[in-house]
C-alpha cells in the first residue's frame, strides 16, 4: 500500500481513540516500551514510547496530525534535541494505528 498517498489523506482529518474497546496498559521502569491490550480486537501490542505519547494525546477531544505535532512538541515528554518531530513519523504511526483499529476518524 502506498503510505504517502494514505498519509496525505489522513493528515487533515481529526483522529480519536476507537470507541469499540478499552485500552489497558502495562508499563515498567526498566524500559520505555509499553504493552497495550485493546479489548476491541483482543490484540496485545508492544508500543514505542512515541506511539504511547500519541495515543495518550488522543484522549479527550479528536485531534489532527498537526494538533498532535504541536501538542507533543510543546510538552516535556520528548527531549528537545529530537525536535522537530518529522511529519512522516506522526503520519505513519496514525496510519498503522488506524489499520489496527486503535484509532478512528
Amino acid at each position, binding site marked *: 500500500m502506498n503510505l504517502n498517498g494514505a498519509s496525505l489523506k489522513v493528515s487533515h482529518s481529526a483522529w480519536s481513540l476507537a470507541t469499540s474497546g*478499552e485500552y*489497558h496498559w*502495562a*508499563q*515498567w521502569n*526498566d*524500559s520505555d*516500551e*509499553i*504493552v497495550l*491490550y485493546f*479489548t476491541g480486537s*483482543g490484540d*496485545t501490542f*508492544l508500543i514505542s514510547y512515541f506511539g504511547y505519547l500519541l495515543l495518550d494525546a488522543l484522549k479527550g477531544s479528536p485531534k489532527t496530525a498537526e494538533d498532535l505535532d504541536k501538542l507533543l512538541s510543546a510538552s516535556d515528554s520528548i527531549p528537545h534535541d529530537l525536535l522537530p518531530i518529522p511529519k512522516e513519523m506522526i503520519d505513519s504511526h496514525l496510519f498503522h494505528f488506524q489499520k489496527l483499529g486503535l484509532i478512528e476518524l
Partner: protein
Amino acid sequence: MTDTISALPFDHFSGFLKGEGIRIETGPFITRLQTKLTDVIENLALLYSDYPISTEAGFSDFHLDIHKPNSIRRWIHPQVNFTFDGITPFKPLPRPQAYAIFEWGLNWCISNYAHQYLIIHSAVLEKNGAAIVLPGIPGAGKSTLCAGLALSGWRLFSDEMALIEPSSGQLVSSPRPISLKNESINIIKNFSSSAVFGITINDTTKGSIAHLKPQIESIQRCKEKTTPRIIAFPKYRTGARTSLTPLTKSRAFMTLCENSFNYSIQGKLGFETIKSLISSCDCFEFEYSSLDEAIKTFDTLIEQME
C-alpha cells in the same frame, strides 16, 4: 484416591485398563484411561507407580482411550489412535508411538479444556518456596534443564505447562513424566544414576523420545501451590558460556504471550494475569551448554531471593 499403582498387583492394574479403565490423578486433573496395548500398560506401571489412582467410578476430567484403529490398514501399517470421550482429535500415529500419543494427548486435553488457568508452554520448578518459569519453544533445551533441576532437589511442577490461577496469581502443580529427546536422553542418564526412564520411542516427528519418572516428593506435594519469582527463557547452544541476561519486562510480556496456549482466549483477565506475573518476577534470557553450571546458576539465584 488413596491407592497408588505400586500398591496394585500388575494383573489387576492391567485388567482394569483393558476394561472399565483406571483413574489417575496428576495434580488438579483426573484422567480415566482405557487401553489394551501392553507397551502402554507396562510403561504406565513404571512411570506412574507413585501417583494416586482409583479403580472406582467417579468424576474424571478427561476420558481417554488409546487403541488400534479399526481399519484394514492395521494389517499393513499398524497404527494407534487417541480418543477423548469419543472424539478423535488427531490423525493416528505409527503403532510404536502409542505411549507418546497418551502423553501428548493428555497435554492436548489440558491446553484445550482447562481455561480456568492461564497456560504457558513452559517448565516450572520450585525450591525454597519460590518457583522458576522456563518458557520455551521446542528445541530450546527447556526439558533437559527441567530434568536436571528435578534431579537436583527442585520440586517439579510441570515440564510442559505452567498453570497459573488468575485469581491468586499462583502456580498450580501437575507433575508428569518429563519428555526428553535424542541426545538429552543420554545427557540425563549420565547426569544422574537415579534417573528412571520408560521405553525409548524412535522415529517420532521429534526424533527419539523417552520419559523420565518424576521424583516421588513432587507427586506427594503436588497440592502445594507456589509463587512465581523468576522467568528465564532458556536457550541451549553447543559450546555457549553460561549467561543470564536481564530481559525488559515489556519484552518478557510479549514473549510469554507468544508461548501461551490460551492467553488470546483469556481476554482482559489474561492480560491482568500476565501483568501481575511479570511484576512479581525477575526476567532473564538464559544461555547455556553445561547442565551443571546451569543448575548452579539457578541454585544461586534462588538462594539470593529473600
